[in-house]
């Protein structure tokens, strides 16, 4: 894929050496002075058309909308080198920084999620018992199928009204199931005589086209049930379900918030709903490798680390995780926490970090920022305020930055890392273990002061940003250009962490282990009661436990602390202890955790069972009441391995047991 970069000097105001840049970028580079002017932009377009370019990176965000339309055939990406570089640093630093962020952006441009159109239908269920609900239902009737679920009877000529109390909503956009308790008055049987309304001592029965009982006020005295001439009232009705593609709440707060569930408290919510009717464009942000999931086996629940991290209600962890793409925004929080790489999101590439750091600055500081908080840096640029040339990597959501990314930055030559996020991102991050994990990791290497977290909420001013960044960077001593190889970070998350553990220990010495209840790392201890059965090795979803002749082997580097072995072990002899030991992580080796005496088959001479298990089995067989097998000695039979056993019994059946074969 051929890329081109359009650079604009913004009328020569940028303090950047474009010639130098052009030399060091290995793709087509075009430089302009006034790219945002129509004549120049059109000229740029002709130049690009001549070069057969697939994708372009426009380093000018001044008139983004206009350029986006003009260059729409080239899938343009934009980068602000004016406020981020050219206006805020000296010429050399600004040039290096620009080079870094352009290279990094060029890498990440190739990773785009797949978009698709889905017809979700337009079967709207409105939940609410205020008269406004009927009005809105009438309004929406023109563009969708509308039904109304209301706890009180409401008058309406045109709308189907279901009288009942909502319990819960399940499902996703286009496929919701709403459970509700129907009103005790059975509409089919009711003859609208009104006897119930007259007799009710608490006046809870109201009329609105049909009769209904206000279940919040009713004390279930049963008077109405007695008086009803057609037995149309029952307090023992079963819960019912309605299917809907969209659920709209009016005057009630839903339990869950996700796409497809709307709370009509503003015009914005109404337009969101109308936008989501019929065909909608969805983005498949994630590839889900369900076969790698360690959520459980054989009725035991294992890892549930992704359960609560999704702030958008897009992951439902039932037996295996299910992703609702309509609600998913690609924040990649699930990818950041999952130890077995079930979720694959294109949000942040390690190669982009590598490209960013391939510049000549000392010290090199990477600033991971979410899109919201990055606006702060643009404000700084607008004011032409100088600060230390940190290398920004702007992601949509800060949750995409996992422990591996931060550690990879250090491995690839960063001297410090700053994480800057908006309130929402930091809130999501607080539900994840990764940030604490990285901090502890760096602490044990004595590098705790090389990580800075900036919470860029509404009170955070641009002067605070400059102060914090300058203070952090001025205190950083560059890490010596290290000996030893760099880590190979092309694998899955755990592979990468093992590699990083190796490279960190080579470069920065041997760290002490640390504890953490939420980190997916554990060691196992096997007690003497182990009978060397196969349960743990079968249950382990990541092959961290393996059996070999008379030994049980364990690989600490692969264990994700899912606890399945501890739960499913028949002898209860495995205990799982959470601990992070980076030295051990780096080894990626199987080590012996248990050894016992084994019995050898009387026939073929191969080892087949541990002595402890053999005793158990003999006890069971010797007490079994098996008269039908009086023609064989069962106790003798279990001294043979399972293959020899079936052979012996077959020979017996063939009447050949006395002959040599």
């Amino acid at each position, binding site marked *: 894929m051929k890329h081109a970069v359009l650079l604009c000097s913004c009328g020569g105001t940028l303090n950047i050496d474009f010639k130098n840049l052009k030399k060091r970028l290995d793709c087509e580079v075009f430089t302009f002075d006034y790219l945002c002017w129509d004549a120049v932009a059109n000229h740029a377009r002709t130049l690009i058309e001549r070069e057969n370019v697939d994708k372009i990176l426009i380093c000018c965000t001044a008139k983004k909308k206009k350029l986006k339309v003009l260059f729409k055939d080239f899938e343009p990406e934009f980068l602000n080198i004016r406020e981020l570089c050219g206006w805020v640093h000296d010429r050399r630093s600004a040039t290096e920084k620009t080079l870094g962020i352009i290279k990094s952006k060029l890498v990440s441009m190739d990773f785009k999620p797949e978009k698709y159109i889905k017809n979700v239908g337009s079967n709207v269920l409105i939940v609410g018992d205020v008269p406004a609900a009927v009005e809105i239902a009438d309004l929406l009737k023109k563009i969708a199928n509308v039904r109304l679920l209301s706890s009180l009877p409401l008058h309406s000529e045109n709308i189907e009204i279901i009288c009942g109390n909502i319990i819960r909503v399940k499902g996703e956009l286009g496929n919701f199931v709403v459970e509700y308790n129907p009103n005790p008055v059975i509409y089919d049987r009711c003859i609208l005589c009104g006897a119930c309304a007259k007799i009710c001592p608490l006046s809870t029965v109201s009329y609105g086209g049909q009769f209904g009982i206000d279940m919040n006020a009713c004390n279930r005295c049963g008077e109405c049930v007695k008086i009803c001439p057609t037995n149309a009232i029952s307090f023992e009705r079963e819960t019912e379900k309605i299917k809907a593609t969209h659920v709209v709440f009016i005057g009630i707060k839903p339990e869950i918030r996700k796409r497809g569930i709307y709370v009509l408290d503003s015009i914005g919510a109404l337009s969101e709903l109308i936008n989501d009717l019929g065909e909608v464009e969805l983005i498949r942000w994630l590839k889900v490798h369900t076969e790698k999931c360690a959520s459980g086996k054989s009725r035991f629940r294992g890892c549930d680390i992704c359960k609560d991290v999704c702030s958008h209600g897009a992951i439902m962890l039932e037996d295996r995780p299910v992703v609702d793409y309509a609600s998913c925004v690609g924040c990649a929080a699930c990818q950041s926490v999952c130890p077995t790489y079930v979720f694959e999101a294109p949000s942040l590439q390690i190669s982009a970090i590598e490209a960013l750091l391939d510049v000549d600055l000392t010290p090199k500081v990477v600033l991971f920022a979410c899109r919201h908080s990055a606006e702060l840096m643009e404000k700084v640029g607008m004011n032409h305020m100088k600060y230390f040339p940190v290398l920004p990597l702007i992601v949509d959501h800060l949750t995409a930055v996992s422990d591996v990314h931060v550690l990879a930055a250090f491995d690839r030559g960063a001297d410090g890392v700053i994480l800057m996020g908006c309130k929402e991102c930091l809130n999501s991050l607080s539900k994840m273990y990764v940030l604490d994990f990285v901090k502890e990791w760096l602490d044990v290497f004595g590098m705790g002061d090389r990580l800075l977290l900036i919470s860029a909420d509404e009170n955070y001013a641009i002067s605070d940003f400059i102060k914090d960044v300058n203070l952090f960077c001025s205190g950083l001593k560059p890490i010596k250009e290290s000996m030893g190889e760099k880590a190979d970070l092309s694998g899955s998350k755990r592979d990468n962490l093992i590699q990083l553990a190796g490279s960190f220990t080579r470069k920065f010495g041997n760290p002490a282990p640390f504890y953490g209840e939420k980190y997916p790392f554990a060691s196992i201890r096997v007690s003497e009661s182990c009978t060397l059965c196969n349960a743990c090795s*079968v249950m382990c979803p990541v092959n961290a436990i393996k059996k070999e002749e008379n030994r049980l082997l364990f690989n600490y580097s692969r264990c994700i602390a899912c606890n399945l072995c501890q739960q499913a072990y*028949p002898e209860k002899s495995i205990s799982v202890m959470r601990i992070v030991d980076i030295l051990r992580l780096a080894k990626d080796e199987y080590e012996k955790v248990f050894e016992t005496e084994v019995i050898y088959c009387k026939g073929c001479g191969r080892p087949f069972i541990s002595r402890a298990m053999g005793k158990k089995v003999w006890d069971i*067989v010797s007490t*079994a*009441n098996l008269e*039908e097998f009086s023609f064989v000695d069962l106790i003798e039979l279990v001294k043979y391995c399972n293959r*020899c056993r079936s052979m012996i019994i*077959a020979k017996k*059946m063939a009447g050949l047991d006395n002959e040599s*074969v």
Partner: protein
Amino acid sequence: MAKYVFAFNPELCIGCRACEIACKQHNDLPVGIKLRNVYTFESGKFPKPELRFVTISCFHCSDPPCMKACPMDAIFQREDGIVLVDESKCIGCGYCLYACPFGAPTFKSSDALGSKGTMRKYTFCYDRIDKGLKPACATVCITGALIAGSAEEVSRIKKEMAASKLANTL
């Protein structure tokens, strides 16, 4: 409830392995897993050598040791004597494999000391039994070496066969 049993007469078996194949087909078994095995034995001496065939599988014992050994209570015995395993409860520990005197439980790979996966075993085709049919293996046996059914039925068939054999020889 009637107890289900099967009977095997090695003198009638011709080693065609139809029972093995019917079992694989009916249970849709993957490569490498057989719930019914046919063994071939050479016997006799020159000039009268002989081949003998035996088909065996789970015997559905009256007091199954595998069921007693199972730590997860995944193995159970139905009222009609059929012993089954609930694979969703199985943790693959292999106790049943070692407790069974006949080596009937089958795993994805059951090397000595290292079985993998959850247990499967001969089910007596309980799904066919429930429909009033015979197990797949017994249905396809062309010589009548393998017969299955309720205890009375099997003993009746055995008697009939013995009688007809007697009639033939007379």
